[in-house]
């Protein structure tokens, strides 16, 4: 069965950019969420084995999603993809359980580097 990848970002342009950056040979099912509430729902529904998560979003932001994942021990590997690249933001998401932090704008090289570094995509 394919891995479920969730892209959670309020910008449709950013979601598209993220989807394009995924390695083409990586056979996964890609799902989308446009805010944190939708994101948590999708993760509960088993659509987020791997989550690419934006931080600044309406309704529930990325920090809120990380808290929800931790609180309910949801099975998701989270890679934060954010435009807020301040040292504080990076530390805060790591302490909330995010696996990695990618600085926006995302591109194929950055995605591949993280996926292989953390062994999420074997052979990447």
């Amino acid at each position, binding site marked *: 069965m394919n891995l479920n990848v969730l892209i959670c970002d309020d*910008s*449709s*342009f*950013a979601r*598209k*950019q993220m989807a394009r950056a995924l390695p083409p040979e990586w056979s996964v099912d890609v799902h989308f969420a446009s805010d944190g509430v939708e994101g948590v729902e999708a993760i509960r529904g088993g659509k987020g084995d791997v989550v690419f998560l934006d931080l*600044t979003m309406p309704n529930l932001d990325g920090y809120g999603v990380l808290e929800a994942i931790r609180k309910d021990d949801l099975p998701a590997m989270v890679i934060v993809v*954010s*435009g*807020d*690249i*301040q*040292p*504080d*933001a990076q530390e805060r998401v790591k302490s909330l359980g995010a696996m990695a932090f990618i600085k*926006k*704008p995302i591109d194929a090289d950055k995605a591949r580097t993280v996926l292989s570094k953390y062994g999420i995509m074997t052979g990447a």
Partner: protein
Amino acid sequence: MTTSLASLSEDQRDCYQELTNVAKGQAADRLARLLNAYVILPIPKISMIENSDLNMAIQGAHADSRVSAVCQGFIGSGIAGEAMLLFNDTSFASLASLMKYKGPLNKQSELELLMDTASVLIGACIHGIGEQLEINFNQGHPVVLGQHCDVEELLKQGQNSWNKTLAIEIHYTIEHVNIECELLLLFTENSVRTLNKKIDYLLD
């Protein structure tokens, strides 16, 4: 003669907003490292704005406060615009202390603080937007529009020869201290067409 510009489509607005988010984040990171503080980043406002609305928007945001402001032109690949940084005058004391500025705070030292902050925020933001659009913007010299003035006085100086243009408003505040400023990016009417083409290409 200039024909009036249509409004932005939802996709175009979203794309401008995302490009700005990234650039604004890079600028905030530079400022955060300079001040050793956390910069709060609200979502930027993107709008096609009429000349008269712009004055209203700026005045609305700073109605009761005295401000100091710097502007700086930028140009590249057929796109030209003006960045304007408005600083709430109440911000200077906190800014001076975060920058570990010693000595009395007078018009001259405030000017230095204003110029330092402006060069970080404007430079990083313009560079960040340009980089994503593959445009190499050249920046003009920063010009002080005024220190400790009413916004109204400040805006009177403008030439205001345009009708409608693209405005990007970015509000920066620093966590736990009283520092507030507003960065406004305005593009010339003719640039917006070129910019929109670049945006449409990214959206394709």
